[in-house]
């Protein structure tokens, strides 16, 4: 073979590689990027079906209609029945402003755009689709209303869920907005510096404060060699940084349980130092910090600082939930649920079922374990401590008559003068039916004083309603 031929074959190989790379890139695009690309609001295809498919109904777990559509002169009108109540769950769907919430994430189902090619073909033969599928939520409308009422006038978020299967019973974020009037008030809503469009429950990042001690305690129990009794003088000096207890109270001799009950910073600061950054981070990541929580709404990841060689003061601050650590309320409700559910953290979900217009179930969300945070024994031990927090310690305001409640309060210092008030917990402690996370943004009060009573009322209402 002459040199020209050899070179020609090389060129042919280069050209073939180029064409094969087209095939590879195209497949890559289709598998990994297409879904996200297609859901862009600029994709007019999303709106084409809307002209003739009646958008599906969204109903709560008892079948109460929350959002529905009707046709008037070939134009579709979407009605959101409960003003602001579902602004962050259901969201909205308008041509001008796009889609948000479940209206966005379940757009395909609501418009009955099936992925299943065989069903697609049969539907093409049987005629054009006229009605979309309906969504049945895990949300309980009465609980959602009550939860919203208890958060009225405040800033913050509450997530109420079933610790055993991950169903979200109620989820409220304040301030909120009314999707049915947002067309007229768009500018006002978007420019509001309190950001009512932000779903604080899944995307609000807050300093956790003392509720994080549950995670530190888990880590301490997992590492048996850790020192677990301390002499608390009300403050401790760590390399020049003075870590103080609330109001400088000296707790005296404390063990792990006592430390959690009184929320002793001195003890947990030292536990953090003893554990070291890696072990604490490891436990935190089992609790889904720094991890993407798969959910039907947009979420932000909770943050455990990614840093090698944290300074000792920083590490001590992180162990008590201060410093650079940030969490979402949804994540914290899942933390409480994990303890309630023997250390198994369930995947949270809002939509129980997708049903077609004829009432046939098309898709059911089944409970899924997302992460195993600790052994059953350790979860049990933490649960006992949390029961005593409510019985004897900072969480007394969460006590419910005749029901054993487990919980943990948090008062999180932040960049502003006013602390965030936290409470996470579950009830009944022996056979948990509900788990909750409450955060009051810049409440300027302790979690025990302001967040615990709200959590108590909602849990009591939930136990009553869900019975």
């Amino acid at each position, binding site marked *: 073979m002459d040199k020209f031929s050899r*070179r020609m074959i090389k*060129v042919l190989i280069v050209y073939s590689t180029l*064409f094969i790379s087209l095939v590879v*890139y195209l497949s890559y695009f*289709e598998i990994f990027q297409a879904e996200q690309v297609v859901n*862009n609001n600029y994709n007019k*295809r999303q709106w*084409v079906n809307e002209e003739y498919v009646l958008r599906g109904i969204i109903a709560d777990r008892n079948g109460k209609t929350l959002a529905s559509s009707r046709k008037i002169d070939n134009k579709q009108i979407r009605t959101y029945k409960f003003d602001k109540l579902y602004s962050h769950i259901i969201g909205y769907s308008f041509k001008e402003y796009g889609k948000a919430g479940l209206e966005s994430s379940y757009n395909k189902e609501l418009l009955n755009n099936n992925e299943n090619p065989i069903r697609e073909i049969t539907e*093409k033969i049987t005629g054009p689709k006229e009605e979309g599928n309906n969504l049945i939520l895990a949300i309980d409308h009465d609980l959602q209303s009550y939860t919203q009422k208890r958060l009225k006038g405040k800033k913050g978020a509450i997530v109420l869920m079933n610790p055993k299967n991950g169903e979200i019973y109620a989820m409220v974020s304040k301030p909120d907005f009314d999707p049915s009037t947002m067309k007229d008030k768009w500018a006002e809503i978007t420019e509001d510096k309190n950001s009512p469009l932000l779903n604080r429950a899944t995307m609000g990042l807050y300093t956790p404060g003392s509720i994080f001690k549950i995670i530190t305690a888990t880590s301490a129990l997992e590492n048996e060699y850790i020192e677990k009794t301390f002499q608390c003088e009300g403050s401790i000096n760590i390399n020049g940084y003075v870590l103080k207890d609330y109001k400088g109270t000296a707790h005296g001799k404390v063990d792990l349980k006592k430390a959690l009950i009184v929320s002793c910073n001195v003890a947990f600061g030292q536990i953090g130092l003893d554990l070291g950054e890696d072990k604490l981070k490891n436990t935190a990541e089992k609790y889904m910090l720094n991890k993407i929580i798969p959910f039907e709404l947009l979420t932000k990841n909770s943050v455990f600082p990614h840093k090698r060689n944290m300074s000792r003061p920083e590490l001590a601050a992180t162990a008590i939930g201060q410093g650079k650590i940030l969490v979402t309320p949804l994540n914290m409700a899942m933390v409480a649920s994990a303890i309630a559910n023997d250390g198994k953290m369930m995947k949270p979900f809002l939509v129980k079922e997708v049903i077609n217009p004829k009432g046939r179930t098309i898709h059911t969300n089944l409970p899924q374990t997302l992460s195993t945070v600790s052994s059953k024994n350790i979860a049990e031990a933490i649960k006992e401590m949390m029961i005593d927090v409510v019985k004897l310690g900072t969480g007394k305001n969460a006590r419910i008559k005749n029901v054993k409640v487990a919980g943990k309060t948090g008062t999180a210092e932040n960049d502003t003068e006013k602390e965030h008030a936290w409470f996470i917990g579950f009830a009944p402690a022996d056979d948990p039916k509900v788990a909750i996370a409450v955060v009051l943004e810049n409440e300027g009060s302790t979690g025990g004083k302001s967040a615990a009573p709200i959590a108590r009322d909602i849990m009591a209402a939930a136990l009553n309603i869900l019975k």
Partner: protein
Amino acid sequence: MIKKVLSYKMPQNLIFLVNVMALLLLYFYKDGFDKFILTSGILLTFIIYISNFMLLKTSSGDHYIFLIMTMLVSIGIIMIYRINPSYGFRQITWFGIGIITFFLFYTVTKNIRGLEKWTKVYVVLSMALFLSTLIFGVRIKGAINWIKIGGLSFQPAEIIKILFVFFLASYYVDREKMNHPYIFLGVVYGYIGFLFIQRDLGTAMIFYFVFITILYVFEEERKLIYYNLGGAVIIGVLSYFLVNHVRVRVITWIDPWRYIDNKGYQITQSLFAIGSGGFFGTGIGLGHPEFIPEVHTDFIFSAICEEMGIFGGIGVILLFLIFLYRGFKIALNQQHQFFKIVAIGMTAMLGFQAFIIIAGVIKMIPLTGVTLPFVSYGGSSLVSSFAALGILQVASEDIYLEQEEENG
């Protein structure tokens, strides 16, 4: 019977089958297409059958390249018809003219001797066409590359493509014709410079790569190749900083979503279409390729992906790949030096053009506005592609070796 119809010995039957199925789908799905579509369908199939038959009888060379291309034209016409029936019908007419051009170029090229001696003629003709484009040219889509004569408009660059390949081939048959390799290089960059002035970046790229391909295979002074590659990199970087529309192409490639309202509109619409199709496509007539601007020309591939699926798109890519393989095989077997180089040149030209537009619309490389050969709507493009194919057909046959006779 069925066995015979599906036999690989009669591959045009497969094209026939595809056409019948696709046109039937269109017929049933779109109301109001009725008789029109029937005539078109019969016409299209008739042209394909007759031309393939004629080729079998007349040419002793390769019988696959023509088949591949008629398949591609069929896919193109089906898509164009679905997007706009009147364009579709016009494209069938152009297809007919294309076939005539194919046989015309085939016959003429086969019977003229001494094509390799006309180096200067090719250059002078090309430059004349370039100049007339600049003087009489009309600006369409940002590029000045069309000439209107009466009611007809055509792109001189399509003719120049063929002249350019002839020029390169004739030079490498006998390099003494140019006194110095740098004069040769000067002429080549003259071509590319003219295209740059016309803002026809896609075609400039195609010319450049055809040049590099031929240079790589036939140039004896290997360092020239590196100089040229280095030069291209420098020109590329410089034009990014100095020429606005080059920069626009690059930034809308890196992140079109930021410019979704304006500069990035076309490419994002194309991605929506491809994404919506999935692997199997929405089915012909059931997607919305009409949302993409220029869908019948530059973005025809996106429309194919939307309605025939990624698998349909991959099919088109693979057809081009087989074409490339056949083209290189023709060049490898050809003993006549001039036609060897012409075969490489034509194959590289069509193949590379297909690559840059497909890669462009799927956002693998920055988008340059060229047509997808044989598939896109457009008379100039289709006719000149068939002309190139006719020449390639000649190159696939045994050619009487004049040179040897003279030498011996």
